[in-house]
């Protein structure tokens, strides 16, 4: 079931085309991730969907509801954590949550939210005195207070330490278990791969591609990159380079000193052959790896650009 559909969204700020043409639909219960470099138009897209920015063009439907006729109903259905977390700095997390809870008819209990975002300990400190990560968690808490069906998280983990980031991943996965729909943006490919049912890659205001992480990677070539480095130095690497070039499944090699990179469509077979060769020659090999393709490669393949965090 589709809970949100956006079609041909467009938005310009003066001469800047922030969003050129973005369409997608989000299914109930999924984690839908929008990923893209800085300035790609992620926040602008979300803000149009959240009713904060009016699109120059395009349609936004929450099932039967749209902003022109059902603004209040939509606001009750969604929970938003904006990229720049705004809250009352002179109130405590508890007071912020209580205040936001009063805007809704069926809010979740504040203690529950504090527990979820792990702020119970800090519930009586002024927000002003919280760390960046704690603020971020409170912002997520504020998005959850209304027990929304659809949750928008704009870069929920940017600037968090690994522990806190994993903490937020747990929250998102927990929401998924509860059957909530989450739409999030991120710069971290790893995060997108781990959490999302589907990923929408955007660049310069356009959707580059959209699918489940595994499908996206499979769409790429089945070639893998093998890396080896030789204990016996450059000579051994040169020999092995020559040998592997003869193999059928190898398309390309690259050597740098004692390190060798081989691109092969059947990496396991290639490795087997290579090890036979090194054993015969009794070359010592250290650091062997097959690099898995990631969303980063997907991005590079589609845009021809380096992925930069």
């Amino acid at each position: 079931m589709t809970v949100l559909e956006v079609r041909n969204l467009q938005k310009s700020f003066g001469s800047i085309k922030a969003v050129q043409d973005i369409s997608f639909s989000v299914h109930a219960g999924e984690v839908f991730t929008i990923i893209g470099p800085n300035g790609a138009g992620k926040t602008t897209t979300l803000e149009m969907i959240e009713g904060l920015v009016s699109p120059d063009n395009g349609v936004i439907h929450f099932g039967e509801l749209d902003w022109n006729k059902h603004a209040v109903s939509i606001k009750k259905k969604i929970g938003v954590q904006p990229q720049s977390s705004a809250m009352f700095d002179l109130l405590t997390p508890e007071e912020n949550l209580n205040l936001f809870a009063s805007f809704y008819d069926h809010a979740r209990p504040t203690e529950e939210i504090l527990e979820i975002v792990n702020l119970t300990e800090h519930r009586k400190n002024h927000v002003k005195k919280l760390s960046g990560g704690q603020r971020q968690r409170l912002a997520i808490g504020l998005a959850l207070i209304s027990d929304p069906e659809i949750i928008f998280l704009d870069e929920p983990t940017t600037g968090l330490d690994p522990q806190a980031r994993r903490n937020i991943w747990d929250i998102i996965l927990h929401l998924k278990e509860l059957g909530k729909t989450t739409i999030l943006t991120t710069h971290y490919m790893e995060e997108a791969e781990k959490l999302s049912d589907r990923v929408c890659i955007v660049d310069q205001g356009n959707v580059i591609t959209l699918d489940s992480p595994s499908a996206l990677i499979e769409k790429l070539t089945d070639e893998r990159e093998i890396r080896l480095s030789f204990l016996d130095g450059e000579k051994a690497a040169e020999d092995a380079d020559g040998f592997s070039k003869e193999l059928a499944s190898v398309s390309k090699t690259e050597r740098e000193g004692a390190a060798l990179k081989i691109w092969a469509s059947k990496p396991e077979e290639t490795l087997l052959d290579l090890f036979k060769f090194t054993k015969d020659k009794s070359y010592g090999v250290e650091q062997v790896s097959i690099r898995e393709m990631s969303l980063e490669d997907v991005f590079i393949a589609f845009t021809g650009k380096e992925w930069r965090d």
Partner: protein
Amino acid sequence: MNTLHQFKMMFLAQLKLTLREKQAWFWGIFFPVILMVIFMVIFSGNSDEEFKTEVAIVEPSPNPASEMMLSQISELPVIEVKSGKPVTRKKAEEWVKDQEVDAAIILPESAEASSVLLVVNKENEQGAAAQAVSGILDKFVQQANLLAAGASPKYDLQYESITSGTNELDYTDFLLTGMIALSIAQGGMFGMVDLVEMRRKGLIKRLRMTPANMGIFGLSDMVMRLLFSIVQIILLSLIGVLVFGANLYINTFTLIIVFLIGALSFNALGYFFSSFSKTTEAYMGVANICSFLMMFLSGVFFPIETMPEWIQPISAVLPLTYFADGLRESMVYETGIATASLWAGIAVMVIWGAVTFLLGSVLYKRKTIAADR
């Protein structure tokens, strides 16, 4: 029910924010109190320092007693007799009215008459000069009594004041009501900086993502501000009355009307500033200029009549002039609500409030994006 709950929660939040904001306390409470105390101490004249004062002397019909007094007064080092000789009573009173002299001394009409009359301008009755002349004259009269033959004191000092206009209040009352007007006005003009700050931080945007009723939010904010102003009135009045002996005769109904209209108008002015200020600094700049101008042009510290003629038309259009006047009417003269001049002042404030509020709303609308649907 939900609306009521929302109002309650929003009001509580506003209350906590105000209580926790040190700036609010400093500028809203501490600063006006200090300013008022400084002005009252300086200008209510309890200082003993050397000074010279100019007086007019009236000798209705020269007689031995008056001749003797005249020569002695002329010799007092601190009193300078204007034009060096007695003048007519009419002339002297004119000088007092125009504040060309600090006081007029009217000598006894005959050797039998027993009183010396001191005429001062009501507006600086409590001023340093008037106090000093009266004090000096008091001593002088005592001496004269001793000199005069006879058992019982012969001369006593009678005190009379002349007023140059409708003003019939002493400086303490004047300054107290002026300070109350000023602090409420500043509360409105500076207070709306919160709005700029909330907008800059994205809090307004954040609230708009929720179904929160922004009207209720505005209302709770307004109620909080009015309460804060009431605290200002009470605190300043208490200090004025208890420490500096101000006399207040309050017409509660008039006071409530003037207070509400004034406070709302100045908040509207602040709202207007906030609608075109992108940063707190920009807002504070505008608010500072306006508050500074009004502070000195609206008769807060000194009566407008004492200012140069060419400035007075400016005062006549400033809302603070009428707010201060209205507060004086309602807190010092006990003026009833059915007074034409009072309503003229209220009208000026209403116009300022309505125009700035509308302008502010238009500017806000123009900039606001889809948010308000």
